[in-house]
């Protein structure tokens, strides 16, 4: 390496002579940082999404590679958030990739002191059987004057404000058809 090359490679020289007088871009770049590539550039794709926390509805861009979320950033196109995210929204990648996430079905028998594993398909089937049994035990056809009730007060459900409209629609539709009236969500609290 000649002296000239050495001087020209010196960040202060580049800052004074180049196009980056404030030294916040090209002038500050090292050989190593020049070789780095942003995760957002190597992503397989980017999904246009919305922050899952509060109801402001900030736009998110979800970058992913090999079926893994690699980065979540604010969407600068959004007229609501203009690319910004708060501490929670900025932590969304940590949320969805958290090692604490439960990814298998867990089952606790009555009076048990520990969890067990359970096959998902079996679990859904067991739940369906319990719904049918609860309806049979608690069904009310009509009131004391013979007016229809068509319901069970033996089944309750809570939650929906973190879910999609399409999901809430199916939940309400199915519970209503099974006569389960006691459906509530965070809007009540």
């Amino acid at each position, binding site marked *: 390496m000649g002296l000239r090359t050495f001087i020209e490679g010196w960040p202060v020289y580049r800052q004074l002579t180049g196009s980056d007088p404030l030294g916040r871009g090209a002038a500050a770049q090292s050989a190593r940082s020049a070789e780095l590539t942003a995760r957002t550039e190597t992503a397989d794709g980017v999904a246009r999404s919305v922050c899952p926390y509060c109801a402001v509805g900030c736009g998110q861009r979800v970058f992913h590679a090999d079926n893994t979320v690699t980065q979540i950033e604010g969407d600068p196109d959004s007229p609501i958030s203009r690319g910004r995210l708060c501490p929670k929204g900025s932590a969304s990648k940590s949320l969805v990739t958290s090692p604490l996430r439960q990814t298998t079905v867990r089952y606790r028998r009555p009076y048990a002191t520990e969890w067990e594993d359970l096959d998902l398909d079996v679990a859904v089937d067991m739940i369906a059987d319990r719904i049918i049994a609860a309806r049979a035990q608690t069904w009310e056809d009509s009131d004391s004057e013979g007016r229809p009730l068509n319901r069970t007060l033996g089944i309750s459900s809570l939650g929906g*404000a973190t879910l999609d*409209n399409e999901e809430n629609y199916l939940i309400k539709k199915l519970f209503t058809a099974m006569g389960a009236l006691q*459906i509530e969500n965070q809007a009540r609290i």
Partner: protein
Amino acid sequence: MAEAHPVGFQWVMEAKRRGAKVFHVDPRFTRTSAVADTYLPIRAGTDIALLGGVVNHILTHELDFREYVLAYTNAATIVSERFADTEDGDGFFSGFDPETNSYVQDSWQYEGHEDDSGSGHTADERDSAAGMRHESHGAQVAGQVRRDETLRHPRCVYQILKRHFARYTPEMVERVCGIDREKFLELARAWTENSGRERTGCLIYSVGWTQHSVGVQYIRTGAIIQLLLGNVGRPGGGVLALRGHASIQGSTDIPTLFNLLPGYLPMPHHADHPTFDEWVDSIRHPGQKGFWGNARAYAASLLKAYWGDAATPENDFCYGYLPRMTGDHGTYQQVLNMIDGKVKGYFLLGQNPAVGSAHGRAQRLGMANLDWLVVRDLFMIESATFWRNGPEVATGEIVPTECRTEVFFLPAASHVEKEGTFTQTQRLLQWREKAVDPPGDARSELWFFYHLGRRLREKLADSAHPRDRALRDLAWDYPTHGPHAEPRAEAVLREINGYEVATGRPLSTFAEARDDGSTAVGCWIYAGVYADGVNQAARRKSRHEQDWVAAEWGWAWPANRRTLYNRASADPEGRPWSERKRYVWWDPEKAEWTGYDVPDFEKTKPPTYRPPEGAAGPEGIAGDDPFVMQGDGKGWLYAPSGVLDGPLPTHYEPAESPVRNPLYRQQANPTRKVYAHPVNSVNPSPPQEHSQVFPYVFTVSRLTEHHTAGGMSRTVRPLAELQPEMFVEVSPELAAEVGLAQLGWAHLVSGRAVIEARVLVTDRLTPLRVDGRVIHQVWLPYHFGFQGLVTGDSANDLFGITLDPNVLIQESKIGTCDVRPGRRPTGPALLDLVADYQRRAGIVAGRPGPAVTPGAPPPTRAADPTGSDPTRADGTGTDHGDREGRDAS
């Protein structure tokens, strides 16, 4: 707002940069206070007194936007001579029924409408949270009303309002709220000066406002101010609710709620709605003006979407299949029923009541007494592990080997692992694309409920039971894709939007819905989100490529309208009130409404249109009546029906308060919903004895770094690290009084629980001088629980269960407690401490104290149309300064 909705708060800062003055009212100094022009610390639970003071300021000085008020509100309407105000009834309006602690509304009606309007007796409506129906429309008014355009008639709304708030003076605000009168006047002056033809002012609240026993009336008071100042339906105006979950608006519009069906159609009541016709007529009120007149089409189309081919005009579209309400089936009633062993199974879908709901111990005891519990969540939350890790295990109240509840934990897919729409807090639907597959057994709710329904239908396919017909006939055929047979969310969105049954063509607007079975519409107010077969919620035209209204980003209900009632942004003749505040106006050349937003008015109805005699439905709305979903087309300063605890807001003390109500002998909202269940209790308040056992006020709210019950934040490393521990904020004065040390421990005791927290001594909280004495308030975050990376006691354990009568939301922004230094006891000693406080406070389990304050005998029921109103003659309310037990401490 800066704490809980930081990114939304950037717009407040933009407004401030352009000269707006920002006022922040909060019991606690926060990041919002730090950048506000003026911060007003307030005694929690006194917002109606503060806002009522603003109303009084406006009316005393005649600062209302008179042209707007006269033309667009019911200020000029004459009210029945049978109406009596709380000012004459010492805290009671006319029509109070002491047997049910609720009102008969006949005497509240407009003159001449005493018998044909209103909902009559409101006790049933309280149980079914009927106030929520009005989220998309107002209550009804039949026919014509009498008006006095001079606003001088003693019974016109304007004069009633003036008398009602006359005692809400700056001095009274200071006495009730602890807000210095000069600071109050600064707020009142700024608000009124920034309203009118050229300017608009905006009122923003977070939904802590709803968590009071008078929550709906808080918001009513804000709406009255905004109507008086002409700040509704105009750009830069409005009453903006900042809601706290990504799609909590969506889950109210498409309700997973017991009392509603999609689009705010009421769930039928067994006695009131025996037939389809009676149900529909109770919604549309034949002869009623406004757009709600088409309710039969919305109702028929919903049932058609539910039961498809089986739903025909001949069988009333399977109306008989709908389950019927008989009373209160809300979440708190359910929990008490669980404790009593009446509920077999419970689903938790991304909600964590063991931490997030009031009276955590009641929640956990209820869940410990089920046959089975299904928890669907991203993380192992407290509501799934209460049987082994909950505080009741430590006290011996729950013994795992004796706890019978069978628990299924099913992992859920996250927001990036499925596609679908969220509806954010301003009614805007935004479609999310899917990024990756969910891990392991994690599935979307769409998957779970579709396949659960499929399986139930298979198992019941041959059932002969009449109760299974609604499931067997259900239209439950959704296309699926992928290895797990995930249902197509867009197919569901299309059904929500609605379509023509014969052709499958998606509807473009709810005006295309029919009542003959030819259309199916899952949620009529969402009609248009899939117009032309295009997912309008997925639109993402950059903000740089469109105007500031950004109408091509997502889709807002109804009809992609961004500001509701925006006809009010133009004057009665259809011209903008001012050039600065131009938004929607009448174009006389094209003979249509136009502007930046989708006009909230029939497009070609001219401002000069006057309805013919007896016109109903949309035809009955005049060309200068902007509030098209209201029965009389007017904004309601005074609500003759629809609000169950009064046509006007009145200051009541919270259910638990150390202060005697300075305004009325009636202490708290007499219509509040209380539960006389052994697990529930209310700490005594004056004039009851022993209120000094719980001398301090506590309030709760969110931290920027955590979310609700912590299931999505105490499990996330960066967030857990930023706010690692449960704490309580106390003022230096209280710390000295109680003997608390910075970063030491304190424990807080209520009649329900004792919790501990680390102490943060800070002047973010300040003692307030109220009615001649000092009131200390402490603040707690409500995010903590016993699972996750960071844990702590739950603030919500301190609360009892008392609800707002309109919407059955609990009072969980204020309670009373004692504060003691050091850590709380553990094990059975913890129960002994709470029991000792209960004994000292005279709390008897299951006896929550009288709704009507002793010494304030309610006026006798004034529903008898032949008799005069006794509340006017009995001399109550003459001496507000001489009350028994006022200084209980």
